[in-house]
Protein backbone atom coordinates (compact mmCIF):
# COMPACT_ATOMS: atom_id res chain seq x y z
CA UNK A 1 0.00 0.00 0.00
CA UNK A 2 1.40 3.35 -0.99
CA UNK A 3 1.87 6.12 1.56
CA UNK A 4 0.39 8.73 -0.74
CA UNK A 5 -2.20 7.56 -3.21
CA UNK A 6 -3.71 9.69 -5.94
CA UNK A 7 -6.51 7.94 -7.76
CA UNK A 8 -8.42 8.99 -10.87
CA UNK A 9 -7.70 12.62 -10.15
CA UNK A 10 -9.29 15.12 -12.51
CA UNK A 11 -9.42 18.90 -12.56
CA UNK A 12 -11.34 21.14 -14.91
CA UNK A 13 -11.41 24.91 -15.03
CA UNK A 14 -14.64 25.55 -16.87
CA UNK A 15 -14.49 23.64 -20.15
CA UNK A 16 -10.73 23.25 -19.88
CA UNK A 17 -9.63 19.97 -18.32
CA UNK A 18 -6.13 20.42 -16.98
CA UNK A 19 -5.68 17.07 -15.26
CA UNK A 20 -7.28 13.91 -16.66
CA UNK A 21 -7.48 10.59 -14.83
CA UNK A 22 -4.22 10.97 -12.96
CA UNK A 23 -3.10 7.99 -10.84
CA UNK A 24 -0.01 7.77 -8.72
CA UNK A 25 1.18 5.82 -5.71
CA UNK A 26 4.11 7.19 -3.75
CA UNK A 27 6.01 5.02 -1.27
CA UNK A 28 7.00 6.35 2.14
CA UNK A 29 10.29 8.22 1.89
CA UNK A 30 10.23 8.27 -1.88
CA UNK A 31 11.31 11.30 -3.94
CA UNK A 32 9.02 11.67 -6.94
CA UNK A 33 9.29 14.31 -9.65
CA UNK A 34 6.45 15.51 -11.80
CA UNK A 35 8.14 16.53 -15.03
CA UNK A 36 6.51 18.16 -18.01
CA UNK A 37 6.20 21.29 -20.12
CA UNK A 38 4.27 24.28 -18.78
CA UNK A 39 0.54 23.70 -18.85
CA UNK A 40 0.84 19.91 -18.54
CA UNK A 41 -1.02 19.91 -15.22
CA UNK A 42 1.92 19.07 -12.93
CA UNK A 43 1.51 22.10 -10.71
CA UNK A 44 -2.26 21.58 -10.57
CA UNK A 45 -1.72 18.01 -9.31
CA UNK A 46 0.65 19.32 -6.64
CA UNK A 47 -1.79 22.05 -5.64
CA UNK A 48 -4.56 19.50 -5.29
CA UNK A 49 -2.35 17.39 -3.01
CA UNK A 50 -1.66 20.56 -1.00
CA UNK A 51 -5.36 21.41 -0.90
CA UNK A 52 -5.15 24.74 -2.73
CA UNK A 53 -7.31 23.38 -5.56
CA UNK A 54 -10.33 21.15 -5.18
CA UNK A 55 -10.33 18.15 -7.54
CA UNK A 56 -13.24 17.89 -9.96
CA UNK A 57 -13.11 14.13 -9.41
CA UNK A 58 -10.86 11.53 -7.82
CA UNK A 59 -9.42 11.00 -4.37
CA UNK A 60 -6.19 11.69 -2.52
CA UNK A 61 -5.11 9.53 0.42
CA UNK A 62 -2.18 10.26 2.71
CA UNK A 63 -1.14 7.50 5.09
CA UNK A 64 -4.52 5.80 4.68
CA UNK A 65 -6.49 8.98 5.41
CA UNK A 66 -8.73 10.46 2.75
CA UNK A 67 -7.64 14.12 2.61
CA UNK A 68 -9.59 15.09 -0.52
CA UNK A 69 -12.09 17.20 1.41
CA UNK A 70 -9.64 18.60 3.99
CA UNK A 71 -8.55 22.23 3.96
CA UNK A 72 -4.83 22.91 3.37
CA UNK A 73 -4.26 23.78 7.02
CA UNK A 74 -5.64 20.41 8.13
CA UNK A 75 -3.46 18.25 5.91
CA UNK A 76 -0.09 18.50 7.63
CA UNK A 77 1.91 18.94 4.47
CA UNK A 78 4.96 21.10 3.88
CA UNK A 79 5.15 23.25 0.80
CA UNK A 80 8.01 25.16 -0.79
CA UNK A 81 7.13 27.71 -3.47
CA UNK A 82 9.02 28.95 -6.50
CA UNK A 83 8.89 32.52 -5.16
CA UNK A 84 10.11 31.44 -1.65
CA UNK A 85 7.03 33.07 -0.03
CA UNK A 86 8.82 33.85 3.21
CA UNK A 87 6.85 36.22 5.43
CA UNK A 88 8.67 39.53 4.94
CA UNK A 89 7.59 40.93 8.31
CA UNK A 90 9.06 38.03 10.28
CA UNK A 91 12.67 37.19 11.03
CA UNK A 92 14.17 33.94 9.78
CA UNK A 93 13.62 32.25 13.13
CA UNK A 94 10.03 33.50 13.30
CA UNK A 95 9.41 32.25 9.78
CA UNK A 96 10.65 28.78 10.68
CA UNK A 97 8.61 28.90 13.90
CA UNK A 98 5.40 29.96 12.15
CA UNK A 99 3.92 26.50 11.66
CA UNK A 100 4.90 25.44 15.17
CA UNK A 101 3.21 28.51 16.65
CA UNK A 102 0.09 27.80 14.62
CA UNK A 103 0.15 24.29 16.09
CA UNK A 104 0.52 25.78 19.61
CA UNK A 105 3.78 24.02 20.37
CA UNK A 106 5.26 25.23 23.72
CA UNK A 107 7.84 28.00 23.37
CA UNK A 108 11.00 26.18 24.55
CA UNK A 109 10.28 23.36 22.11
CA UNK A 110 9.79 25.85 19.28
CA UNK A 111 13.17 27.44 19.97
CA UNK A 112 14.88 24.04 20.00
CA UNK A 113 13.18 22.93 16.80
CA UNK A 114 14.02 26.21 15.00
CA UNK A 115 17.68 25.85 15.96
CA UNK A 116 17.66 22.26 14.77
CA UNK A 117 16.12 23.23 11.43
CA UNK A 118 18.55 26.09 10.82
CA UNK A 119 21.37 23.67 11.62
CA UNK A 120 19.92 21.19 9.13
CA UNK A 121 19.97 23.67 6.26
CA UNK A 122 23.41 24.90 7.22
CA UNK A 123 22.43 28.45 8.19
CA UNK A 124 22.55 28.30 12.00
CA UNK A 125 23.52 31.96 12.46
CA UNK A 126 20.84 33.62 10.36
CA UNK A 127 17.90 33.33 12.77
CA UNK A 128 17.81 37.04 13.52
CA UNK A 129 17.95 38.22 9.92
CA UNK A 130 15.00 39.24 7.80
CA UNK A 131 14.18 37.75 4.38
CA UNK A 132 15.10 40.94 2.49
CA UNK A 133 18.64 40.63 3.87
CA UNK A 134 19.15 37.17 2.35
CA UNK A 135 20.12 35.87 -1.07
CA UNK A 136 17.67 33.82 -3.13
CA UNK A 137 19.42 30.56 -2.29
CA UNK A 138 19.38 31.33 1.43
CA UNK A 139 15.71 32.33 1.28
CA UNK A 140 14.77 29.08 -0.41
CA UNK A 141 16.68 27.07 2.18
CA UNK A 142 14.83 28.95 4.94
CA UNK A 143 11.57 28.17 3.14
CA UNK A 144 12.57 24.50 3.17
CA UNK A 145 13.36 24.66 6.90
CA UNK A 146 10.01 26.36 7.54
CA UNK A 147 8.16 23.64 5.65
CA UNK A 148 10.06 20.85 7.43
CA UNK A 149 9.78 22.32 10.95
CA UNK A 150 6.23 21.02 11.45
CA UNK A 151 7.32 17.48 10.51
CA UNK A 152 4.89 17.25 7.61
CA UNK A 153 3.70 13.92 6.27
CA UNK A 154 4.51 14.95 2.71
CA UNK A 155 6.87 17.60 1.36
CA UNK A 156 5.71 19.38 -1.77
CA UNK A 157 8.21 21.36 -3.82
CA UNK A 158 6.79 23.60 -6.54
CA UNK A 159 9.67 24.42 -8.90
CA UNK A 160 11.76 25.57 -5.93
CA UNK A 161 14.92 26.07 -7.95
CA UNK A 162 13.54 27.91 -10.98
CA UNK A 163 14.07 31.40 -9.58
CA UNK A 164 17.71 30.80 -8.65
CA UNK A 165 20.82 31.25 -10.74
CA UNK A 166 22.47 28.24 -12.34
CA UNK A 167 25.25 27.58 -9.85
CA UNK A 168 23.04 27.76 -6.74
CA UNK A 169 20.45 25.67 -8.52
CA UNK A 170 22.84 22.77 -8.91
CA UNK A 171 24.24 22.94 -5.38
CA UNK A 172 20.79 23.32 -3.78
CA UNK A 173 19.59 20.36 -5.82
CA UNK A 174 22.09 18.13 -4.09
CA UNK A 175 21.37 19.70 -0.73
CA UNK A 176 17.60 19.22 -0.95
CA UNK A 177 18.06 15.58 -1.97
CA UNK A 178 20.50 15.07 0.89
CA UNK A 179 18.13 16.52 3.49
CA UNK A 180 15.22 14.56 2.02
CA UNK A 181 17.19 11.30 2.30
CA UNK A 182 18.32 12.07 5.83
CA UNK A 183 14.78 12.78 7.04
CA UNK A 184 13.25 10.06 4.88
CA UNK A 185 10.39 12.36 4.01
CA UNK A 186 7.98 11.52 1.21
CA UNK A 187 8.48 14.23 -1.40
CA UNK A 188 6.81 15.40 -4.59
CA UNK A 189 8.90 17.74 -6.69
CA UNK A 190 7.45 19.65 -9.62
CA UNK A 191 9.80 20.82 -12.35
CA UNK A 192 10.04 21.49 -16.05
CA UNK A 193 13.79 20.90 -15.95
CA UNK A 194 14.55 17.32 -17.00
CA UNK A 195 18.05 17.47 -15.60
CA UNK A 196 16.68 18.29 -12.14
CA UNK A 197 14.07 15.56 -12.37
CA UNK A 198 16.52 12.91 -13.57
CA UNK A 199 19.30 13.76 -11.14
CA UNK A 200 17.21 14.08 -7.97
CA UNK A 201 14.39 11.57 -8.16
CA UNK A 202 13.74 7.98 -7.19
CA UNK A 203 11.02 7.99 -9.80
CA UNK A 204 9.95 10.48 -12.43
CA UNK A 205 6.41 11.05 -13.68
CA UNK A 206 6.51 12.56 -17.16
CA UNK A 207 3.29 14.49 -17.71
CA UNK A 208 1.75 15.85 -20.87
CA UNK A 209 -1.72 17.24 -21.51
CA UNK A 210 -2.98 16.36 -18.04
CA UNK A 211 -2.00 12.69 -18.04
CA UNK A 212 1.03 10.74 -16.84
CA UNK A 213 2.79 9.55 -19.97
CA UNK A 214 5.30 7.42 -18.12
CA UNK A 215 6.23 6.68 -14.53
CA UNK A 216 9.61 5.16 -13.85
CA UNK A 217 13.12 5.46 -12.50
CA UNK A 218 15.25 8.13 -14.24
CA UNK A 219 17.37 5.43 -15.94
CA UNK A 220 14.25 3.80 -17.31
CA UNK A 221 12.65 7.04 -18.46
CA UNK A 222 15.76 8.09 -20.29
CA UNK A 223 16.70 4.78 -21.87
CA UNK A 224 13.29 3.24 -22.47
CA UNK A 225 10.89 6.10 -23.13
CA UNK A 226 7.39 4.64 -23.38
CA UNK A 227 5.96 7.22 -25.73
CA UNK A 228 7.14 9.52 -28.43
CA UNK A 229 6.49 12.49 -26.15
CA UNK A 230 8.66 11.13 -23.34
CA UNK A 231 11.42 10.31 -25.79
CA UNK A 232 11.34 13.83 -27.17
CA UNK A 233 10.90 15.70 -23.91
CA UNK A 234 13.49 13.91 -21.82
CA UNK A 235 16.94 14.45 -23.24
CA UNK A 236 17.92 15.30 -26.81
CA UNK A 237 16.71 12.87 -29.38
CA UNK A 238 17.66 12.21 -33.00
CA UNK A 239 14.94 10.73 -35.15
CA UNK A 240 15.60 8.85 -38.36
CA UNK A 241 13.01 7.60 -40.81
CA UNK A 242 13.02 3.89 -41.50
CA UNK A 243 10.72 1.17 -42.79
CA UNK A 244 10.10 -2.20 -41.22
CA UNK A 245 11.69 -4.95 -43.28
CA UNK A 246 10.82 -7.88 -41.05
CA UNK A 247 8.78 -7.47 -37.89
CA UNK A 248 9.51 -10.97 -36.53
CA UNK A 249 13.29 -10.60 -36.42
CA UNK A 250 13.15 -6.87 -35.80
CA UNK A 251 14.87 -5.79 -38.97
CA UNK A 252 14.54 -2.26 -40.28
CA UNK A 253 15.51 -0.82 -43.58
CA UNK A 254 17.43 2.39 -43.01
CA UNK A 255 18.82 4.22 -46.01
CA UNK A 256 19.02 0.94 -47.91
CA UNK A 257 20.80 -0.88 -45.09
CA UNK A 258 19.32 -3.64 -43.01
CA UNK A 259 19.48 -2.90 -39.33
CA UNK A 260 18.86 -5.80 -36.96
CA UNK A 261 17.49 -4.61 -33.65
CA UNK A 262 17.38 -8.10 -32.19
CA UNK A 263 13.86 -7.72 -30.84
CA UNK A 264 10.47 -8.27 -32.43
CA UNK A 265 8.42 -5.28 -33.55
CA UNK A 266 4.67 -4.86 -33.23
CA UNK A 267 4.25 -3.04 -36.53
CA UNK A 268 3.83 -4.96 -39.82
CA UNK A 269 6.52 -5.11 -42.50
CA UNK A 270 6.57 -2.22 -44.94
CA UNK A 271 5.27 0.39 -42.52
CA UNK A 272 7.26 3.51 -41.79
CA UNK A 273 8.65 3.98 -38.29
CA UNK A 274 10.78 6.55 -36.54
CA UNK A 275 14.03 5.42 -35.01
CA UNK A 276 15.30 7.48 -32.13
CA UNK A 277 18.91 7.71 -31.00
CA UNK A 278 20.39 9.51 -28.00
CA UNK A 279 23.32 11.79 -28.92
CA UNK A 280 25.67 9.68 -26.82
CA UNK A 281 24.74 6.55 -28.83
CA UNK A 282 25.99 8.07 -32.07
CA UNK A 283 29.69 8.25 -32.96
CA UNK A 284 31.60 10.11 -35.58
CA UNK A 285 33.56 7.60 -37.66
CA UNK A 286 33.63 3.83 -37.18
CA UNK A 287 34.13 2.09 -33.91
CA UNK A 288 34.10 -1.45 -32.64
CA UNK A 289 30.64 -2.72 -31.73
CA UNK A 290 28.85 -0.02 -33.67
CA UNK A 291 27.36 -2.09 -36.46
CA UNK A 292 25.40 0.54 -38.37
CA UNK A 293 27.45 2.96 -40.42
CA UNK A 294 25.84 5.75 -42.43
CA UNK A 295 27.24 8.48 -44.61
CA UNK A 296 26.58 11.98 -43.42
CA UNK A 297 27.36 15.60 -44.14
CA UNK A 298 28.55 17.79 -41.27
CA UNK A 299 26.06 20.66 -40.88
CA UNK A 300 27.14 22.36 -37.71
CA UNK A 301 30.00 22.15 -35.24
CA UNK A 302 29.61 23.65 -31.76
CA UNK A 303 32.73 23.69 -29.68
CA UNK A 304 31.57 23.69 -26.03
CA UNK A 305 34.91 23.10 -24.36
CA UNK A 306 35.22 19.57 -23.07
CA UNK A 307 32.48 18.46 -25.42
CA UNK A 308 32.01 19.12 -29.14
CA UNK A 309 28.43 18.94 -30.37
CA UNK A 310 28.11 18.10 -34.04
CA UNK A 311 24.98 18.12 -36.18
CA UNK A 312 25.11 15.85 -39.17
CA UNK A 313 22.64 15.26 -42.00
CA UNK A 314 22.29 11.61 -42.94
CA UNK A 315 19.57 11.92 -45.57
CA UNK A 316 17.16 9.84 -43.48
CA UNK A 317 17.28 12.41 -40.72
CA UNK A 318 19.55 14.80 -38.89
CA UNK A 319 21.46 13.71 -35.84
CA UNK A 320 23.10 15.58 -33.06
CA UNK A 321 26.08 13.82 -31.56
CA UNK A 322 28.63 14.62 -28.90
CA UNK A 323 32.34 13.87 -28.99
CA UNK A 324 34.86 14.63 -26.30
CA UNK A 325 37.42 17.23 -27.12
CA UNK A 326 40.88 15.89 -27.82
CA UNK A 327 43.80 18.19 -28.42
CA UNK A 328 45.25 15.95 -31.13
CA UNK A 329 42.02 15.59 -33.13
CA UNK A 330 40.42 18.81 -34.36
CA UNK A 331 36.67 18.62 -35.18
CA UNK A 332 35.70 18.02 -38.82
CA UNK A 333 35.03 21.11 -40.94
CA UNK A 334 31.43 22.10 -41.67
CA UNK A 335 30.23 20.78 -45.02
CA UNK A 336 32.62 17.85 -45.11
CA UNK A 337 31.52 14.26 -45.65
CA UNK A 338 31.88 11.85 -42.78
CA UNK A 339 30.75 8.51 -41.50
CA UNK A 340 28.47 8.19 -38.51
CA UNK A 341 27.94 4.95 -36.64
CA UNK A 342 25.76 3.54 -33.89
CA UNK A 343 24.82 0.19 -32.42
CA UNK A 344 21.54 -1.24 -33.61
CA UNK A 345 20.57 -2.25 -30.05
CA UNK A 346 20.68 1.43 -28.97
CA UNK A 347 18.00 2.40 -31.46
CA UNK A 348 14.60 3.15 -29.95
CA UNK A 349 11.68 2.47 -32.24
CA UNK A 350 8.87 4.97 -31.70
CA UNK A 351 5.28 3.95 -32.44
CA UNK A 352 3.41 6.20 -34.75
Amino acid at each position, binding site marked *: MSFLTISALRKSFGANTVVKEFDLGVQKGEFISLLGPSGCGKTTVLRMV*AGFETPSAGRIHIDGQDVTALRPNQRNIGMVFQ*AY*ALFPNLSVAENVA*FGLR*AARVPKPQIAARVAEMLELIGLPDLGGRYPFQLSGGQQQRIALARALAVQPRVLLLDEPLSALDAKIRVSLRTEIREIQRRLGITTIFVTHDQEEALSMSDRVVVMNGGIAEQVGAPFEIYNQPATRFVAGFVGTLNTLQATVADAQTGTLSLDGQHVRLGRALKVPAGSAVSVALRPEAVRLGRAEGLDVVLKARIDEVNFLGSVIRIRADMGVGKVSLDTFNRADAPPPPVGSEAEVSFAARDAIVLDH
Partner: protein
Amino acid sequence: MTRRFPILPTLIVLAGAAYFLVPLYAAFQFSLQMKRGELSFEAYRSVFESSTFLSTLTFSTVASAAAIFFGAVLVVPTAYWVRLKLPKLRPVVEFLSLLPLIIPPVVLVFGHIRLFGSNSILPLTMSSWGTNILLVIGYVVLSMPYMFRAVDNGMASIDIATLTEAAESLGASRLRTIIDVIFPNVRSAIVSGAFLTFSISLGEFVLASLLNRPAFGPYMVQLGQDYAYQPAALAIMSFALTWILMALMQMAATRKPGQRLFRPSRSLAASKSQ
Protein backbone atom coordinates in the same frame (compact mmCIF):
# COMPACT_ATOMS: atom_id res chain seq x y z
CA MET B 1 35.25 66.45 -16.57
CA THR B 2 33.11 69.06 -14.87
CA ARG B 3 29.43 69.29 -15.67
CA ARG B 4 28.01 72.68 -16.40
CA PHE B 5 25.77 74.08 -13.72
CA PRO B 6 22.14 73.52 -14.85
CA ILE B 7 20.99 77.15 -14.87
CA LEU B 8 17.57 76.82 -16.48
CA PRO B 9 16.29 73.89 -14.38
CA THR B 10 17.48 75.65 -11.23
CA LEU B 11 15.59 78.80 -12.20
CA ILE B 12 12.42 76.80 -12.82
CA VAL B 13 12.72 75.07 -9.46
CA LEU B 14 13.31 78.41 -7.72
CA ALA B 15 10.30 80.00 -9.45
CA GLY B 16 8.13 77.02 -8.48
CA ALA B 17 9.36 77.11 -4.91
CA ALA B 18 8.76 80.86 -4.69
CA TYR B 19 5.19 80.31 -5.82
CA PHE B 20 4.59 78.31 -2.64
CA LEU B 21 7.05 79.82 -0.24
CA VAL B 22 6.39 83.55 -0.74
CA PRO B 23 2.70 83.46 0.28
CA LEU B 24 3.57 81.07 3.08
CA TYR B 25 6.22 83.42 4.34
CA ALA B 26 3.86 86.39 3.96
CA ALA B 27 1.22 84.62 6.03
CA PHE B 28 3.81 83.68 8.62
CA GLN B 29 5.11 87.22 8.89
CA PHE B 30 1.58 88.61 9.07
CA SER B 31 0.73 86.17 11.86
CA LEU B 32 3.62 87.59 13.90
CA GLN B 33 2.42 91.22 13.62
CA MET B 34 -0.55 91.18 15.97
CA LYS B 35 1.25 93.54 18.33
CA ARG B 36 1.80 96.86 16.63
CA GLY B 37 5.44 97.63 15.82
CA GLU B 38 6.96 94.33 16.97
CA LEU B 39 7.12 90.67 15.96
CA SER B 40 5.52 88.31 18.47
CA PHE B 41 3.70 85.03 18.82
CA GLU B 42 0.73 86.89 20.29
CA ALA B 43 -1.67 85.55 17.62
CA TYR B 44 -0.60 81.96 18.37
CA ARG B 45 -1.01 82.54 22.10
CA SER B 46 -4.47 83.94 21.49
CA VAL B 47 -5.46 80.90 19.40
CA PHE B 48 -4.19 78.47 22.02
CA GLU B 49 -5.97 80.35 24.75
CA SER B 50 -9.35 79.91 23.13
CA SER B 51 -11.21 76.97 24.60
CA THR B 52 -13.10 76.53 21.30
CA PHE B 53 -9.79 75.90 19.54
CA LEU B 54 -8.95 73.02 21.84
CA SER B 55 -12.46 71.54 21.95
CA THR B 56 -12.94 71.63 18.16
CA LEU B 57 -9.45 70.25 17.54
CA THR B 58 -10.12 67.43 20.01
CA PHE B 59 -13.47 66.69 18.42
CA SER B 60 -12.02 66.55 14.93
CA THR B 61 -9.05 64.45 16.06
CA VAL B 62 -11.35 61.88 17.67
CA ALA B 63 -13.65 61.87 14.63
CA SER B 64 -10.66 61.42 12.29
CA ALA B 65 -9.23 58.61 14.41
CA ALA B 66 -12.60 56.85 14.35
CA ALA B 67 -12.75 57.31 10.57
CA ILE B 68 -9.26 55.80 10.24
CA PHE B 69 -10.20 52.82 12.39
CA PHE B 70 -13.45 52.03 10.61
CA GLY B 71 -11.93 52.80 7.22
CA ALA B 72 -9.11 50.29 7.83
CA VAL B 73 -11.49 47.65 9.18
CA LEU B 74 -13.61 48.06 6.06
CA VAL B 75 -10.88 48.43 3.46
CA VAL B 76 -8.20 45.90 4.49
CA PRO B 77 -10.37 42.75 4.45
CA THR B 78 -12.17 43.99 1.33
CA ALA B 79 -8.98 44.66 -0.60
CA TYR B 80 -7.56 41.30 0.59
CA TRP B 81 -10.60 39.34 -0.43
CA VAL B 82 -10.92 41.05 -3.78
CA ARG B 83 -7.25 40.41 -4.60
CA LEU B 84 -7.40 36.81 -3.43
CA LYS B 85 -10.76 35.56 -4.60
CA LEU B 86 -12.39 38.09 -6.92
CA PRO B 87 -9.58 39.60 -9.01
CA LYS B 88 -12.03 40.25 -11.84
CA LEU B 89 -14.00 42.60 -9.59
CA ARG B 90 -10.98 44.71 -8.73
CA PRO B 91 -11.57 47.41 -11.38
CA VAL B 92 -15.18 47.73 -10.18
CA VAL B 93 -14.17 48.08 -6.55
CA GLU B 94 -11.44 50.52 -7.51
CA PHE B 95 -13.97 52.63 -9.40
CA LEU B 96 -16.38 52.57 -6.46
CA SER B 97 -13.60 53.71 -4.16
CA LEU B 98 -12.96 56.68 -6.46
CA LEU B 99 -16.58 57.88 -6.45
CA PRO B 100 -16.06 60.27 -3.51
CA LEU B 101 -13.65 62.23 -5.70
CA ILE B 102 -16.31 62.60 -8.38
CA ILE B 103 -19.38 63.20 -6.24
CA PRO B 104 -19.06 66.42 -4.20
CA PRO B 105 -19.27 66.05 -0.40
CA VAL B 106 -22.28 68.34 -0.34
CA VAL B 107 -24.25 65.73 -2.30
CA LEU B 108 -23.14 63.07 0.16
CA VAL B 109 -24.17 65.09 3.18
CA PHE B 110 -27.56 66.03 1.73
CA GLY B 111 -28.08 62.37 0.98
CA HIS B 112 -27.25 61.62 4.62
CA ILE B 113 -29.61 64.28 5.90
CA ARG B 114 -32.47 63.13 3.68
CA LEU B 115 -31.94 59.43 4.39
CA PHE B 116 -31.41 59.74 8.14
CA GLY B 117 -33.51 62.86 8.78
CA SER B 118 -36.35 63.32 11.23
CA ASN B 119 -38.90 61.37 9.19
CA SER B 120 -36.72 58.36 8.36
CA ILE B 121 -36.78 54.92 10.02
CA LEU B 122 -33.32 55.59 11.40
CA PRO B 123 -33.41 59.27 12.45
CA LEU B 124 -29.69 59.60 13.18
CA THR B 125 -29.67 63.37 12.76
CA MET B 126 -32.05 63.76 15.70
CA SER B 127 -29.35 63.11 18.29
CA SER B 128 -25.81 64.42 18.56
CA TRP B 129 -24.23 60.94 18.78
CA GLY B 130 -26.23 59.87 15.73
CA THR B 131 -24.97 62.89 13.83
CA ASN B 132 -21.44 62.09 15.00
CA ILE B 133 -21.84 58.61 13.53
CA LEU B 134 -22.96 60.16 10.24
CA LEU B 135 -19.92 62.44 10.30
CA VAL B 136 -17.52 59.53 10.83
CA ILE B 137 -19.21 57.51 8.10
CA GLY B 138 -18.91 60.53 5.83
CA TYR B 139 -15.19 60.79 6.62
CA VAL B 140 -14.73 57.09 5.90
CA VAL B 141 -16.35 57.65 2.51
CA LEU B 142 -14.29 60.78 1.76
CA SER B 143 -11.04 59.02 2.62
CA MET B 144 -11.94 55.86 0.69
CA PRO B 145 -10.03 56.76 -2.51
CA TYR B 146 -6.81 57.26 -0.53
CA MET B 147 -7.27 54.42 1.94
CA PHE B 148 -8.21 51.83 -0.66
CA ARG B 149 -5.44 52.87 -3.03
CA ALA B 150 -2.80 52.83 -0.31
CA VAL B 151 -3.84 49.42 1.02
CA ASP B 152 -4.34 47.92 -2.42
CA ASN B 153 -0.90 49.12 -3.53
CA GLY B 154 0.53 47.70 -0.33
CA MET B 155 -1.00 44.36 -1.16
CA ALA B 156 0.25 44.52 -4.73
CA SER B 157 3.82 44.88 -3.48
CA ILE B 158 3.67 41.55 -1.66
CA ASP B 159 2.43 38.30 -3.15
CA ILE B 160 -0.78 38.02 -1.12
CA ALA B 161 -1.93 34.76 -2.73
CA THR B 162 1.30 32.84 -2.21
CA LEU B 163 1.82 34.18 1.31
CA THR B 164 -1.71 33.07 2.17
CA GLU B 165 -1.03 29.64 0.75
CA ALA B 166 2.27 29.40 2.58
CA ALA B 167 0.56 30.26 5.87
CA GLU B 168 -2.26 27.80 5.22
CA SER B 169 0.09 24.97 4.32
CA LEU B 170 1.79 25.55 7.66
CA GLY B 171 -1.51 24.96 9.42
CA ALA B 172 -2.61 28.56 10.03
CA SER B 173 -6.30 29.43 9.99
CA ARG B 174 -7.70 32.22 7.81
CA LEU B 175 -7.98 34.60 10.76
CA ARG B 176 -4.44 33.86 11.89
CA THR B 177 -3.21 34.38 8.33
CA ILE B 178 -4.86 37.79 8.18
CA ILE B 179 -3.65 38.87 11.62
CA ASP B 180 -0.11 37.45 11.50
CA VAL B 181 0.78 37.70 7.83
CA ILE B 182 -1.45 40.03 5.84
CA PHE B 183 -1.98 42.82 8.34
CA PRO B 184 1.68 43.32 9.36
CA ASN B 185 2.77 43.32 5.75
CA VAL B 186 0.36 46.06 4.72
CA ARG B 187 0.75 47.99 7.96
CA SER B 188 2.86 50.73 6.41
CA ALA B 189 0.24 51.06 3.66
CA ILE B 190 -2.49 51.34 6.27
CA VAL B 191 -0.45 53.94 8.11
CA SER B 192 -0.02 56.08 5.02
CA GLY B 193 -3.72 55.70 4.26
CA ALA B 194 -4.42 56.70 7.84
CA PHE B 195 -2.35 59.88 7.64
CA LEU B 196 -4.07 60.88 4.42
CA THR B 197 -7.45 60.22 6.03
CA PHE B 198 -6.39 62.29 9.01
CA SER B 199 -5.25 65.25 6.97
CA ILE B 200 -8.49 65.21 4.96
CA SER B 201 -10.90 64.94 7.85
CA LEU B 202 -9.14 67.14 10.38
CA GLY B 203 -9.91 70.41 8.60
CA GLU B 204 -12.98 69.16 6.69
CA PHE B 205 -15.65 71.87 6.41
CA VAL B 206 -18.66 70.83 4.30
CA LEU B 207 -19.78 67.73 6.20
CA ALA B 208 -19.05 69.14 9.63
CA SER B 209 -20.76 72.43 8.88
CA LEU B 210 -23.91 70.99 7.30
CA LEU B 211 -24.24 68.38 10.04
CA ASN B 212 -23.67 71.21 12.52
CA ARG B 213 -20.84 69.52 14.41
CA PRO B 214 -18.38 71.45 16.63
CA ALA B 215 -15.44 70.47 14.39
CA PHE B 216 -12.16 72.15 13.55
CA GLY B 217 -13.01 73.03 9.93
CA PRO B 218 -16.03 75.23 10.69
CA TYR B 219 -14.08 76.82 13.55
CA MET B 220 -11.27 77.82 11.21
CA VAL B 221 -13.75 79.37 8.78
CA GLN B 222 -15.51 81.19 11.58
CA LEU B 223 -12.22 82.52 12.91
CA GLY B 224 -11.32 83.72 9.42
CA GLN B 225 -14.48 85.79 9.32
CA ASP B 226 -14.08 87.31 12.77
CA TYR B 227 -10.36 88.00 13.21
CA ALA B 228 -7.37 89.20 11.24
CA TYR B 229 -4.15 87.72 12.67
CA GLN B 230 -5.33 84.47 14.26
CA PRO B 231 -6.40 82.79 10.97
CA ALA B 232 -2.91 83.31 9.59
CA ALA B 233 -1.44 81.73 12.72
CA LEU B 234 -3.90 78.86 12.41
CA ALA B 235 -3.01 78.37 8.75
CA ILE B 236 0.69 78.17 9.57
CA MET B 237 0.01 75.69 12.36
CA SER B 238 -2.10 73.44 10.16
CA PHE B 239 0.62 73.52 7.51
CA ALA B 240 3.14 72.45 10.11
CA LEU B 241 0.84 69.68 11.27
CA THR B 242 0.39 68.43 7.69
CA TRP B 243 4.13 68.40 7.14
CA ILE B 244 4.74 66.48 10.31
CA LEU B 245 2.14 63.95 9.15
CA MET B 246 3.79 63.71 5.74
CA ALA B 247 7.16 63.08 7.36
CA LEU B 248 5.69 60.38 9.60
CA MET B 249 4.02 58.81 6.58
CA GLN B 250 7.30 58.75 4.71
CA MET B 251 9.03 57.11 7.65
CA ALA B 252 6.30 54.52 8.00
CA ALA B 253 6.34 53.78 4.30
CA THR B 254 10.09 53.30 3.96
CA ARG B 255 10.53 51.35 7.17
CA LYS B 256 12.12 47.93 6.79
CA PRO B 257 10.79 44.90 8.70
CA GLY B 258 12.24 44.55 12.16
CA GLN B 259 13.07 48.23 12.31
CA ARG B 260 11.26 50.46 14.75
CA LEU B 261 9.76 53.77 13.67
CA PHE B 262 11.81 55.48 16.33
CA ARG B 263 14.78 53.77 17.87
CA PRO B 264 13.72 53.65 21.52
CA SER B 265 16.47 54.40 24.01
CA ARG B 266 17.67 51.47 26.07
CA SER B 267 16.22 52.78 29.32
CA LEU B 268 12.82 53.38 27.74
CA ALA B 269 12.70 49.88 26.28
CA ALA B 270 13.77 48.45 29.63
CA SER B 271 11.17 50.38 31.59
CA LYS B 272 8.49 49.30 29.11
CA SER B 273 9.28 45.64 29.52
CA GLN B 274 8.92 45.84 33.26
